[in-house]
């Protein structure tokens, strides 16, 4: 699924040079559920963003499903994100003015799916995350757990094989966090690969493997 070889990421701020990732090599098989842990500033989000094609590495090679992602341009990366990857964020990142329905539909607006197929898919996802009654509400009218379920449904809109979650339970109480983990386990059961950044060892225990980061290196 994912093959990374000596991936590095360097930030330059004037004179200061900051190596956020130092020659990370990584291999992840399809349908794995992996958690990434490590202290703050160790490079977890940076790594996840590179895997998610939101960011580009400064060096090294990265193959996603046998496709070399390193040399892709802006719009090509958008296409990869659209088709293969679903993101779940700590702060949900939903469009505040759009309804549950519209938020879930959003990724499908960028690949020319017909209106009928979009409607069917949104309905499926609403049922899956249990928000059919909430489809016309805006995020501000939903609880944190409900908002995260909207975000997960949105991440699944184009049926991606890879789910990336950056502290998905960071803003939720422990009970709601467990519910979200329940959903993740179900997604893994469908054969999806899941990478999740977390600080919580209990949440991490839902995954089968943990990658520990420290100062931009895997330990």
């Amino acid at each position, binding site marked *: 699924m994912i093959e990374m070889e000596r991936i590095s990421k360097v930030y330059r701020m004037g004179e200061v040079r900051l190596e956020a990732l130092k020659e990370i090599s990584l291999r992840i098989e399809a349908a794995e559920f992996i958690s990434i842990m490590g202290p703050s500033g160790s490079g977890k989000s940076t790594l996840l963003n590179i895997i998610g094609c939101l960011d580009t590495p400064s060096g090294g090679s990265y193959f996603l499903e046998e496709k070399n992602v390193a040399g892709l341009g802006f*719009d090509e990366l958008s296409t990869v*994100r659209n*088709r293969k990857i679903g993101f779940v*964020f700590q702060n949900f990142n939903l469009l505040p*003015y759009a309804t549950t329905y519209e938020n879930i539909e*959003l990724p499908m*607006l*960028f690949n020319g799916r017909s*209106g009928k197929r979009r409607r069917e898919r949104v309905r499926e996802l609403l049922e899956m995350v249990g928000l059919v009654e909430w489809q016309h509400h805006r995020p501000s009218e939903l609880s944190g757990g409900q908002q995260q379920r909207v975000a997960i449904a949105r991440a699944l*809109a184009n049926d991606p094989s890879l789910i990336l979650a950056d502290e998905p339970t960071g803003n939720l109480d422990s009970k709601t966090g467990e519910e979200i983990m329940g959903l993740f386990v179900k997604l893994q059961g469908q054969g999806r690969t899941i990478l999740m950044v977390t600080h919580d060892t209990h949440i991490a225990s839902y995954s089968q493997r943990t990658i520990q980061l420290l100062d931009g290196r895997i330990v």
Partner: protein
Amino acid sequence: MILTFFRNLIRDLRRQPLRTSLTLSGVGWGTFAVVILLAFGSAVSRQNLKTFRGVGQGFVIAFPASTTVTYRGLPKGRLVRLTPEQVLLAGQKIPGIKRTSFEFTATRAIRYRREDVLNTVRGVTVGYGDIRNIIAGEGRYLNDADVSQKRRVCVLGDTVTENLFHEEKAVGRTVFIEGLPFTVVGVMKKKIQTSNFSGQRDEHCAFIPWTTYSALFGDKYIGSLIFQPANPADSKRTIRLMREELGKLAGFSPDDNDALFVWDWTEFEKSFSIFFLAFNVFLGVIGAFTLLVGGVGVASIMLVVVEERTKEIGIKLAVGAKRRHILWQFFTESLAIVLLGGGLGFLFAALVLKALPVEKIEEFVGIPLLNPTVGVATILILLTIGIISGLMPARRAASTNPIEALRK
């Protein structure tokens, strides 16, 4: 897809009612100004051209004077005298001349019952009416039979008719010119005439067949000749040929400019049209600048909107939006504001133009109308400004870095 597009657009605009209404009114006001300026501008030009044409249309007028150079043994200082036959013959010979005419003119007594006036009487040809825009409002203009049979008929100007007949109907009655009876066959349709060349304006004149005039009053030589080049741009060449032909017939040199005193009315008309074209371009530019200010308002507000909506752009990019999706979203939004504001301004201008007291202003500025030229010009200006003011914010939006945007 289209439906979603408009729903999102309207929602985006409604989310910021104050901002939307400010930008809308900016563009609306600009459009209003453009439309009103252009409508008035074109009306003023039309009105002026119309009154200018009251004297006639695309013609040249020439007055025989005296020679200033010797010609084939003839001394200088001779009076140039032209007969109707010479003029008509010259007109026929010269290619590129549409109509040739001439007139005998004098101030004469005209009487009807107890009303008595001293007005200009013109002895003219049938073609004269076409050149000078003398159109019968009642009855008819002079015809070929009137001329060939030297009939005692006349066409009266509208004002002299009023002075003589008051409320009475003039056509069919008899008036006396220098004591001789003439039947009124037509009354000239009222025309606005701001320029003239000899005698009174046409509204005060009586027009009679030149043959009648010559027979009754004994005139042999014409007062002035007028002709119409088929193509007004061709006037210079036809004037030269006319000097040559008439010079041969009446004995003066074609290079003797004073022998025939020529007014090229087509020249006046040309400079007149150019002046008013410039005038309208000037008004259009002023209007366009007003509109441009509105467009700058839209652009700067949209830049703020892009800034505020960075997070939204980041989210869309994260789920797979391409640059063009973002570009299109902000571009259409600006364009929609400009077109909507423009539409409102246009509508408002149309209402104002409709409500104008036309009778009161027509004499001075004509009737300001929303003619196609004004409409097309406004739409072109609006589109240009909409595209310019939409493109900049849209490009800014499309160059957003997704990670930076999501961090907001």
